[in-house]
């Protein structure tokens, strides 16, 4: 069971209150009409799936209903940091692109 710190409520709450919404920092193409099928497919469906450090979007669904980011290790499940939408992570994997 995760104990997650919500950066908006400024409190630790139980995992049950939250919902994971997949990878964070996905930029929508600025000009979708100019995308090739490959580029659009990759934006739509291709997600990072690392064995290690992963940046994720979570929503405090049963709380303040705000979205925020978590940096988490997918192997040890350790939550490295929590930061608001618009901010950048400080913990980054060594082999990150």
């Amino acid at each position: 069971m995760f104990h997650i710190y919500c950066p908006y409520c400024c409190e630790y709450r139980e995992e049950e209150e939250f919902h994971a919404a997949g990878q964070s920092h996905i930029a929508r193409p600025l000009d979708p009409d100019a995308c090739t099928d490959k580029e659009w497919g990759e934006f739509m469906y291709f997600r990072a799936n690392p064995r290690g450090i992963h940046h994720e979007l979570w929503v405090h669904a049963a709380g303040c209903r705000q979205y925020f980011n978590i940096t988490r290790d997918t192997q040890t499940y350790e939550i490295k940091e929590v930061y608001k939408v618009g901010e950048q992570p400080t913990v980054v994997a060594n082999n990150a692109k």
Partner: protein
Amino acid sequence: MQHYSGFGLLKHSFSHHENWQRVWRNPTPKKKYDVIIVGGGGHGLATAYYLAKEFGVTNVAVIEKGFLGGGNTARNTTIVRSNYLWDEAAHLYEHAMKLWEGLSQDLNYNVMFSQRGCLNLGHTLQDMRDIQRRVNANRLNGIDGEVLDAQQVQEIVPVLDCSDRARYPVLGASWQPRAGVARHDAVAWGFARGADSHGVDLIQQTEVEDLIIEDGTVVGVRTARYGEIRADRVGCVVAGNSSVLAKMAGFELPLESHPLQALVSEPIKPILDTVVMSNQVHGYASQSDKGDLVIGAGIDGYNGYGQRGSYSTIEHTIQAIVEMFPVFSRVRMNRQWGGIVDTCPDACPIISETPVKNLFFNCGWGTGGFKATPGSGHVFAASLAKGEMHPLAKPFSMFRFHNGALVDEHGAAGVAH
């Protein structure tokens, strides 16, 4: 290979069962193979077996980092069915179902395949409409299926709560009588024994560290234990770790790895002689031949490689089971485990060529790979033998995420992902 039979059992009883032949060899790998299969789970072993038996390619190695059938094959809920909605998926799973029906004879190994039927319950009007649509689609594809009302469901499963007192009352179900369960470990062992007897080298305790790629063509693998092993073609069948292997080959797959967990109860007297699944309350259960209730859960909502799963998922699962079977509320749970499933955005597998020549991937089976084991192995073996994809595998190309030809089985697969 020693043939298993009743007479053999009797003969060996005279020597106190001490002279049985080893089920498979433990060879040192050769320098070069025609085909290397990375991953010695059910699908990988089935691929090796059919490569050798059906397609005459016997110079094959299966390279497994742990032990044979020690991954997801050992961690599933053993359910076999083929009631999928879309033609592409239905044909693939039905191909597997037909192989299941003769598998024990074919392998000369009892995989304990039991066609005890499978119910997919409907709890809302929309569920029932979806069930009617799916059963009609199944029957158009020549797959058996019936729509049952609540009373008929109650007759098949007396312990199921079909009363209107339930929070989500059972309105009916789809019923596939030919579906059932198989003994998951026996499937892996049977395929391993069959493959070995046709000359396939099963290399255990050997982790693939890298793929050797020259001029955009795969020419072998680099292992921690035996160094380089070369091959004309390489097939990767590594379930939860496909993304990691694809990264070695220099491309990406649209996969996310999630823990999927299951649990079994203490053994109890025979009470449930079919498979019951519910999409709405999201739980599924069957009873093994040993007597324990085998209960399946959903996947964790977040990515993970830890083979255990989260507590809240267990709670949701038990809620669903007790909702369906109030009589199970005091059954104690014995064990719980998790497997890592690689889920695709359209809940269908990837059986595909890749941007690297002679490198093939079979992955992304998500939460429902076990039922496909023989079919998956068969079509993948055909593809590896000929160097081009089997017609049943073609719709499951990884390039469908670029051209948009998805096979969207999310709502249609009978149980939510």
